[in-house]
């Protein structure tokens, strides 16, 4: 969340957070709507830039649609940058941001993040199968898939955060990982629907199993972490609630929502959030590779596990994307070609189910705190459930529902044209993922972990995360998803 860029002395602006959610819905729906126009034969987004695996940089970039081939790769890149700059500048102006500062910072953010993505598509990094290696004349490659570019973007951000803090500070107006990932999740609704439409039974089964994620995050993780924080580490209630929420539910959003609900001082959940982001980065750098090594034969277990173990929407959903690429690459090398989208859909389903209840949980805690612990005139009200509800989920559900209806309830012509339209929207989903990864990296100042005083907070996180969150998440993912594979690609 961009709130992380706010100094701890500033109050949490609940209104601004809600606006950020709605802004993500507006931008996500705009991308989806423009992509849908292509069904009618008019291609409005075909100029968006795509990157292919390459050895010759001149061949790396292209416009998405052949109709815009005249633009060339460089032209498509500039057009994509310009469109994002205009839309996002208009968007952040509604949040009260300094548009000039944002535009300058965003230019640098886009340049570094997309350069990282291009670097990640270099064949020596991305080529996966022997056939691909042969095609590019390579004796070896890192086999990270072209989505290894996410990792490169994350590492670029980490280098800036930890070695060039002044540059990180200069970029901060455009470092908005929560905004970027929320837009990406809204757009993702179309891809998930197109994927689900082919196998409605499997998709509905995934939804049912999302309920297990809610139980695990809210009722089991939260209670255990709260106990550890209070009893073993001696933290006060004000610190323990955001800490337990940040580690168990959904990082930044949950820490801030529940911190607000128990009337904690605003600085407390924001400080906790910064630690959540740092740990999420560590997880994104480790867990997808562990999943590829140990869970490649159980792709849906891997997808659910990433959704349960990695906190913060950005890191979790983006981590699901990397996991999908890595596992599909490994499976392809073994001669198994899965339909794309199912692992990421599983991660997203789990994460969204968890997110939906943040408002309810915050209200329950707020009710207990304001009526039984810190009794005062400021009582928790049911209206807070809606206030704290992450609105971007409504955007995701709307896009999902419309896309699913177009896929299974409209004419065969529309259903046939829909995957291409969703694919066009998906170009922007990928770009917002890249911006998210880079932004998370820039926010992850590892020195915070070593700063005296925060070590105790980090210790609770470390003990909880590596002591049981990861393992219980793996166990539950295994119990609910083992033995079931994504459909094979036709």
């Amino acid at each position, binding site marked *: 969340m961009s709130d992380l860029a706010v100094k701890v002395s500033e109050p949490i602006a609940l209104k601004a957070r809600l606006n950020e959610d709605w802004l993500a819905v507006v931008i996500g729906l705009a991308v989806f709507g423009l992509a849908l126009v292509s069904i009618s034969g008019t291609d409005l987004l075909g100029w968006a830039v795509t990157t292919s695996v390459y050895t010759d940089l001149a061949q790396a970039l292209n416009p998405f649609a052949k109709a815009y081939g005249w633009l060339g790769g460089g032209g498509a890149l500039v057009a994509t940058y310009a469109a994002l700059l205009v839309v996002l500048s208009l968007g952040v102006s509604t949040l009260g941001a300094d548009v000039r500062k944002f535009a300058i910072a965003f230019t640098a953010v886009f340049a570094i993040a997309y350069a990282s993505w291009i670097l990640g598509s270099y064949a020596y990094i991305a080529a996966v199968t022997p056939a691909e290696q042969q095609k590019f004349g390579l004796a070896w490659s890192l086999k990270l898939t072209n989505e290894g570019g996410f990792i490169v973007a994350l590492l670029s951000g980490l280098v800036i955060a930890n070695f060039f803090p002044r540059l990180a500070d200069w970029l901060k107006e455009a470092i908005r990982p929560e905004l970027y990932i929320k837009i990406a999740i809204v757009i993702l609704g179309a891809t998930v629907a197109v994927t689900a439409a082919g196998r409605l039974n499997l998709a509905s089964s995934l939804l049912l199993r999302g309920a297990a994620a809610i139980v695990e995050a809210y009722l089991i993780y939260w*209670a255990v972490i709260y106990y550890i924080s209070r009893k073993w580490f001696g933290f006060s209630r004000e610190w323990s609630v955001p800490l337990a929420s940040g580690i168990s539910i959904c990082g930044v959003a949950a820490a801030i929502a529940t911190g607000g609900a128990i009337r904690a*001082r605003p600085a407390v959940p924001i400080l906790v959030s910064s630690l959540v982001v740092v740990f999420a980065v560590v997880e994104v750098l480790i867990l997808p590779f562990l999943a590829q090594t140990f869970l490649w034969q159980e792709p849906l277990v891997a997808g659910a596990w990433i959704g349960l173990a990695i906190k913060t929407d950005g890191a979790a959903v983006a981590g699901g994307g990397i996991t999908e690429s890595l596992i599909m690459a490994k499976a392809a090398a073994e001669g198994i070609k899965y339909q794309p989208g199912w692992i990421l859909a599983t991660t997203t389903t789990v994460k969204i189910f968890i997110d939906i209840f943040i408002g309810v949980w915050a209200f329950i805690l707020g009710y207990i705190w304001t009526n039984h612990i810190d009794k005062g005139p400021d009582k928790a009200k049911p209206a807070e459930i809606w206030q704290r509800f992450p609105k971007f989920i409504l955007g995701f559900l709307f896009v999902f529902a419309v896309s699913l209806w177009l896929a299974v309830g409209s004419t065969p012509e529309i259903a046939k044209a829909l995957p291409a339209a969703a694919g066009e929207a998906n170009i922007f989903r990928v770009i917002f993922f890249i911006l998210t990864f880079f932004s998370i990296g820039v926010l992850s100042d590892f020195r915070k972990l070593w700063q005296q005083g925060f070590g105790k907070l980090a210790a609770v996180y470390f003990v909880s995360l590596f002591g049981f969150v990861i393992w219980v998440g793996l166990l539950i993912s295994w119990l609910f998803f083992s033995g079931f594979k994504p459909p094979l690609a036709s």
Partner: protein
Amino acid sequence: MSETDLKNEINAAAVEPLLPIEKKLIGWSLGLGIGLLIILIGINHFFPIKL
């Protein structure tokens, strides 16, 4: 409030004992969570994922 103040606060804060309501919250959450998880595992067993 500066970050330094918060750091000092974390290190110097007196321990607040767990109140009965907190113990109830932890106990009920865990009990309900484990109970619901068992029910969901049962549902998962009798209604497995359909391909």
